[in-house]
């Protein structure tokens, strides 16, 4: 292909080298005459995907989640190959075990908060207890019987995080979770992401256009830019 890739630079990880990379991603997709591409090789903790609006960060996340098929490359999370053009691997999104937190929360409007949280949970005797525990952790225990339309954006985002975590994902994909939230509430969600990083220990691929946000959360920043 003659289309050049956008420049991708990765800062060195100041923390001790991780045992294995959580995200090994090298994908591209052509949109008209433009190529959206990204290379990530990162360990535990939060990996920030930083870049201006419209550069294709969400497209990359959609490819990692399996909602969009890359034109080429490969995606490994942990040791699991989720997509590999050369080997003909393309795991369906429902089998990727990734928790995707969308910018607009994307709660199901016809289900109450409880129904949303339980959507990806297998029925088991422990499900109710796991739900209660998650609700306490996220501070949404009082919202379980509410409809999504009655939630503030910050509350909806917490529910979305809980909904994803309850499926026991191997990592979280977060697409600018602060973008639709008013400034006063942003710190709450930022602190929550830090708790996910430090207490839950789940690896996070975190998309943002805000350098300060990326630096606060992440030891590893991957920059995406236009050509």
């Amino acid at each position: 292909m003659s289309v050049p890739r956008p420049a991708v630079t990765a800062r060195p990880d100041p923390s001790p080298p991780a045992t294995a990379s959580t995200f090994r991603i090298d994908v591209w997709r052509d949109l008209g005459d433009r190529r959206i591409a990204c290379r990530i090789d990162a360990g535990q903790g939060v990996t920030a995907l930083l870049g201006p609006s419209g550069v294709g960060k969400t497209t990359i996340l959609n490819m990692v989640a399996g909602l969009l098929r890359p034109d080429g490359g490969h995606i490994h999370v942990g040791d699991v190959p989720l997509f590999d053009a050369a080997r003909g691997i393309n795991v369906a999104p429902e089998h990727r075990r990734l928790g995707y937190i969308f910018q607009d929360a994307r709660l199901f409007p016809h289900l109450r908060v409880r129904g949303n949280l339980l959507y990806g949970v297998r029925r088991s005797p422990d499900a109710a207890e796991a739900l209660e525990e998650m609700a306490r952790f996220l501070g949404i225990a009082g919202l379980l019987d509410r409809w999504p339309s009655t939630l503030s954006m910050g509350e909806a985002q917490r529910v979305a995080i809980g909904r994803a975590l309850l499926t026991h994902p191997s990592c979280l994909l977060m697409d600018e979770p602060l973008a639709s939230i008013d400034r006063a509430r942003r710190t709450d969600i930022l602190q929550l992401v830090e708790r996910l990083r430090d207490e839950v220990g789940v690896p996070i691929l975190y998309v943002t256009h805000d350098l300060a946000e990326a630096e606060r959360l992440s030891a590893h920043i991957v920059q995406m830019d236009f050509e």
Partner: protein
Amino acid sequence: MLDLPPDYWPIIALSIKVSAVAVGAMLPIAFALAWILARWRFPGRMLLDALVYLPLVVPPVVTGWLLLLLFGANGPIGRWLADWFGITLLFRWTGAALAAGIMAMPLMVRAIRLSIEAVDRRLEGAARTLGAGPLRVFLTISLPLSLPGVLAGVILGFARSIGEFGATITFVSDIPGETRTLPIAIYAALQAPGAEAVVTRLAIASILLSLTALLLSEVLARRMAAGVRSYRA
């Protein structure tokens, strides 16, 4: 209530039965067509689109005549149904239901299709990332979210079926107690002298039935519009 002679109530009952069966039997087909037209991209989609809406614009007599050709005693489908299942539609109330169902189909497909197109497909993607396969996504996300349109389509189709006349009388004729639905009874009464009072009552009955159905459909459409919710900022 309408002060109808007792022998006219069975006509209303027959009309409701024919329309209910017509809509019930047509619903899965209408939903499948609506889904295909809303979601699939394939060569010939425009042609299918046109065919689905054809009963809306073709003279109903022509639709009835085509049904005669296909489902009559010597028609390809009619003979097959008779040979294999012993089913005859010609001159039967079931034939009236078939005619009413065909005539109601375009309205049903239209209402259902609009509501399928209004389903936010990003929600389906979100469900996939939570571990739901395509069938579960359809049953738990797409179908419930398009339900208001399905209900509106059912009610519109029912109202259309209640009023169905041309294709029905061409296909199954006017047989009292079997195929004489409300509009056909009104037409028959008009042919006899001195039946103005009966015509008036039957006409009022049919207007009331259809109006009720349309009002219900309007209420559902409004609820559907209100159902497009957003988070409070």
